[in-house]
């Protein structure tokens, strides 16, 4: 049938592409695929917003020491469960807060804080505080924002059980949570590329076997497996080893959907006329794959990857939250949320849920970007939403 009927034409005239990308037809005629995708992506407002949020989060994570007012390890028993403090402003003092002292009410066992309004802690930008090493090479002690006097405490987002500054911990936690998402997806991608590629390229029984394995993994609940595997990590392992192990466990079960997408795309691309045309042009297999096939589904893979990252972040958070992932003193958003395990704690210190907000923002941003990418990955298709 297909050889006889006039083919349905998707969006492909310069005029239509121009309306899809918001560019002039003259621009479009000489625009490469990548430019078309980018132009189209830029027209997704939510995706662009997500992209900016993502970039901001990663910048903050990379320069965590600078953006965090304190080091993640500084504690202060006096300030356990200190509620968030809103800085006041006066022209004479600039930004400031009053120092507090906490104590435990012997009858209700609730934490009570007394504000010493006679004293102020001055706050300022680019202040000197805890020592840290920027990017692991430059040792410095300059922080974007904090008490001007080193050693003073100030809690913009409140304090946790040990009196550590939650804001600083969230910022440091971003390092692990965000990088673990990327690293896990990277390993998944390698597995997915290799296995999906083998599956799609060779077909036949190899394909069948790999497909059955994927179906098997997809058909059983992942969390119990993650938990089971993670429980086998010896507790005496250091944070770095645990971190790598967790990453590997997450990607061990996360590669399946990527492998499916890659295989599907490969099979689809393999039957494209232009791939046959390349073969008839005398192009060798390796060049057909690298020059003709890979670029055509690269954009789709990037989109799938960006949709897989949030799943990894959520998985890490859940594992750590349940106590089988990373453990303190490592700081990740999931580890921070361990403090908020019970309703009683949440009722007395609701700000302990703030790391969860960071998770939500990161995941939403990634989802927006992924959706936008998926929509623009094929610049010749019509927008679906």
């Amino acid at each position: 049938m297909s050889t006889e009927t006039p083919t349905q034409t998707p969006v492909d005239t310069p005029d239509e592409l121009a309306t899809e990308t918001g560019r002039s037809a003259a621009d479009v005629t000489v625009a490469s695929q990548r430019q078309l995708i980018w132009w189209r992506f830029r027209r997704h407002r939510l995706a662009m917003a997500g992209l900016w949020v993502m970039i901001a989060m990663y910048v903050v994570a990379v320069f965590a020491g600078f953006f965090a007012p304190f080091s993640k390890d500084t504690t202060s028993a006096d300030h356990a469960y200190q509620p968030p403090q809103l800085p006041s402003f006066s022209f004479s003092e600039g930004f400031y807060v009053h120092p507090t002292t906490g104590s435990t009410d012997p009858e209700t066992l609730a934490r009570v804080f007394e504000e010493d309004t006679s004293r102020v802690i001055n706050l300022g930008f680019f202040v000197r505080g805890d020592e840290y090493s920027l990017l692991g090479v430059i040792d410095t002690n300059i922080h974007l924002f904090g008490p001007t006097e080193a050693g003073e405490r100030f809690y913009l987002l409140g304090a946790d059980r040990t009196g550590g500054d939650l804001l600083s911990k969230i910022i440091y936690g971003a390092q692990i949570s965000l990088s673990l998402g990327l690293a896990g997806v990277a390993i998944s991608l390698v597995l997915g590329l290799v296995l999906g590629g083998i599956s799609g390229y060779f077909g036949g029984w190899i394909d069948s076997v790999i497909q059955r394995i994927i179906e098997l993994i997809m058909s059983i609940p992942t969390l119990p497996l993650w938990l089971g595997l993670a429980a086998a990590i010896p507790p005496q392992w250091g944070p770095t080893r645990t971190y790598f192990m967790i990453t590997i466990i997450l990607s061990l079960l996360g590669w399946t959907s990527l492998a499916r997408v890659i295989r599907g795309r490969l099979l689809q691309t393999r039957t494209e006329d232009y791939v046959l045309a390349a073969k008839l042009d005398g192009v060798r297999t390796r060049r057909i794959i690298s020059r003709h096939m890979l670029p055509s589904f690269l954009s789709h893979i990037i989109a799938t990857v960006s949709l897989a990252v949030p799943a990894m972040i959520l998985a890490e958070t859940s594992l750590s939250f349940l106590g089988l992932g990373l453990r303190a003193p490592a700081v990740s958003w999931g580890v921070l949320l361990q403090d908020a395990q019970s309703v009683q704690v949440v009722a007395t210190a609701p700000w302990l849920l703030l790391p969860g907000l960071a998770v939500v923002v990161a995941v939403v941003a990634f989802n927006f970007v992924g959706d936008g990418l998926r929509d623009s990955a094929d610049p010749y298709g019509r927008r679906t939403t």
Partner: protein
Amino acid sequence: MSWRRRNLERDAAREIAAATVDDDRPMDPGSILELQNLCTTFHTDEGAVKAVDDVSLRIRRGSTTCIVGESGSGKSATARSIIQVVDHPGRVDAGRVLYRPAADRPAADRPAADRPVVDLAALDATGPGIRSIRGREIGLVFQEPMSSLSPVHTIGDQIGELLELHERLAPAAARERVIDDLRRVGIPRPEERFGAYTFQLSGGMRQRAMIAMALVCRPSLLIADEPTTALDVTTQAQILDLLAELKESLGMTLMFITHDLGVVAEIADDVVVMRHGKVVEHGPVDQIFHDPRHEYTRELLAALPQRTTLAVDEPAQAAAAEQPARPLLRIEDLEMTFEAAAGTMFGRRRRTERVNAVDKVTLDIPEGSTVGLVGESGCGKTTLGRCVLRAYRPTAGRLLYTGADGRETDLARLSEKELLPFRRQIRMVFQDPYGSLNPRMTVRQVVGEPLRVAGLASGSELDGRVEEMLERVGLKRSMAGRYPHAFSGGERQRIGIARALITEPRLVVADEAVSALDVSVRTQILELLAELQGDLGLTYLFISHDLSVVERICDQVAVMYFGVMVEHGPAEQVFADPRHGYTRALLSAVPVADPRQRGTRSRVDYEPEDSAA
């Protein structure tokens, strides 16, 4: 339930009464439908596109009126606007659709000319008024019966639904009627087919079911939107016969939308020619074909391959006739078998079936000639072409290719590496000008690829040769830097030809190379191919389902049927005096683009086995 129904009918009657037109003479008494200044616009975020632009036309009661035009002419949108079922985001903006209900419908007591005229465009697009017209007064048949019918409902359910809706028949009574009608449209064993799903029927049977559906309520007007375009030519002939017969016996009016002037000449009484959403010409069929007034109509007719006036005075052809001795390629006992997976469920249970796509085909392709390979879908012609190109490795048989030095090589057994030099001598032009060009490469890269990978040219020399070739195929040198998306279908096909010819090949396999193109563009591409053949001494293997195209340009014709070559010979002889029953059936099914020759030929059927399933 019944009171709701009564309410619905009352609402419908009220709406229709409100849309009734009471001008002095709103429309001609002989007309069943008149469009007056109809405009249908597609409103998108980026602006409005007028698909139907100020269209006025009239359809006489009892006539067959064909709306003809190329893709994008707005003919389908016009048809859909009549009963307001335009695809989202299209909308009827202005104009009137005047419709006079038939004698046995509301207000049947008055004589035809006095019966009220309803403006369908004034009705609410989702209201009960227009819904009482759809399916009951006006039936609609679409191009693709597979996608136009629901895949998860039975045929009987989808047809019977109309009777339950419009005639309030109980399911059992509806079943009787549906089975009768299925039999009427020529579906064998209708009792069984009633419970069948669309995918269990062949394309022709599906279209018959679709027709039965459109006609089950006996509408006065049937709108058929390219109903035969997706079908093979022999099936098309059967469906056209069926429509003519039904129109006669049911006393309907037929509005037939098509791009094929041959079909128009076969069936039309009146013809409306459309272009860019406007009507360019409107008249009786004889006048349109023999005294076209508008320039565009003349162009369309000129582009039409005329079976009667065969252009046989090309020098290349004469030369080939003189010295038929040296075949460029000898295909000997070629076989191609596929292992097809059948009855897969979740891709697990596989029974493999062997399909003989090409079955012991022997064919000589003389140097400098054009050999046409014709047949209907699934006959194996494309597979044969791909074997010649060695896109497939034939299961058995030989492909003896005579090189420029006179040496003969069997291509069928060469390895990929050994094939490389021959890949430059045998080239392909694809059917689909959209899918065959890598969208990520510029024209310069696409066309230059074969030379670059063979290391034959690079840098400015390569660019020079590419640009020269672009000029050769009628494109501009400056276009080399553009991407395929910047070109129209015809231009892309020129790029495809440039890519095929850049290696200075000797044999070009053109697989349905003009099938996806509009008639006028098709002619240009065929002319280009003929011109290049003369200049470069090319040999063509021209694969097509379109007999008229093959007749126009081929010296020799081979006819394939279910993998077997049933007939082979010089074009004039095959077309004038076909030997095989299938060839005769095929030829008799091709519409003749001249209304004056209508009825002068009788149709031949070829039924070697039960093809009714």
